[in-house]
């Protein structure tokens, strides 16, 4: 799994859902979770937290400013590519640390991704889990 460390900067709660903004090295991420400051002690502004998400949920684009609905995005450089029959694995060096993405090998060829390329690495708000 991918894990990014950061600091909680805002918490917006509605019912039992919270939208949490996390600052990681100057880059802001948002995660939506079924917890509130009342149910999860770690939900405090200023707390250090880990954002966890699956490699298979990471989205890659060569465009530095993709016009799609995903707000969690960070630029990075492809460090390694492991090609497989159906799936391929990329490791990407970003401002928030090294991230791994598993995408279809088809997508790898279509985007013509190569080691050293700069890519936008994205993850949906609903795919990020928080952990102490």
């Amino acid at each position: 799994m991918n894990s990014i460390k950061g600091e909680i900067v805002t918490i917006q709660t509605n019912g039992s859902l919270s939208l949490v903004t996390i600052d990681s090295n100057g880059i802001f991420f948002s995660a939506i979770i079924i917890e509130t400051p009342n149910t999860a002690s770690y939900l405090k502004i200023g707390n250090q937290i880990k954002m966890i998400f699956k490699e298979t949920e990471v989205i890659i684009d060569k465009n530095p400013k993709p016009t799609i609905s995903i707000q969690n995005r960070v630029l990075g450089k492809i460090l390694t590519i492991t090609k497989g029959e159906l799936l391929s694995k990329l490791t990407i060096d970003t401002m928030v640390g090294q991230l791994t993405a598993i995408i279809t090998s088809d997508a790898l060829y279509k985007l013509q991704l190569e080691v050293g390329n700069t890519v936008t690495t994205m993850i949906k708000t609903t795919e990020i889990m928080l952990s102490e």
Partner: protein
Amino acid sequence: MIHIALQKKLIAANGEMLLDIDISIEQGKVVTLYGDSGAGKTSILRMIAGLLQADKGSITIDKHIWLDTDQRICLKPQQRKIGFVFQEYALFPNMTVKENLLFALEKGQDKHIVEELIDIVELGNLQHRKPEYLSGGQKQRVALARAMVRKPKILMLDEPLSALDSKMRAKLQDYILRIHKQYNLTTLLISHEIGEVIKMSDTVYVIDHGRISKQGNPIDVFTTKHISGKFQFSGEIVQIIKEDVIYIVTILIGTNFVKIIAQESEIETMTIGDNVIVASKAFNPLLQKIN
């Protein structure tokens, strides 16, 4: 308010065990004792009922003292206002449903309660049958109604539903909750089923080797707060297969197998037989009604 503090040396499977618990229960609540077999749960209920002697301790029910070993007070089982339901129904086989209930009446008690209880557990049509002509669930409803005849202060249920199939279980749980509310009871339940504990109880005490290891609201006690994923289970790794650039890990959760995609770096720390937590966000799983 009910306060129960008990100490007793018990002989467990692997030698002596000191049971030492202290529980406070608010009137009108359902409290569950949860734990492995041999942890001391049944002994606790038996001591509350007066069927087993505590070495030391006290039981106070709304300021009435049932037990105080320091003051040498120890009420007899029949003086304690409890209702007890066991896994095995313990009905009189030669009596009908109604007679089983009537037999439980105290001398001079109004018989009206028997009709009322038969109504609540919906046994009106079966009240003149003998237990041998009843299903497991029906017998347990009789046992539940009978435990209520003397209007107990505490209703104690020692795994009353573990012999029943899941559908019958759910129905019985509803009967228990209905009776609990109707008579404003304080109910003490022993259960092995986490789902049942969550559905039934206000508070759960996890009993481990005679001691309370955790207590609180069942959802809080049984869910890991460590990670925010709401789709969370613990299981055992039974197979790891490399496929392409990923690994497929098969995990046994209860009696179900699930398959999870994992990465080499994760697999490096895991082997077959390891216990793991499987976590996902509540946003991903799909729900589909069966049948």
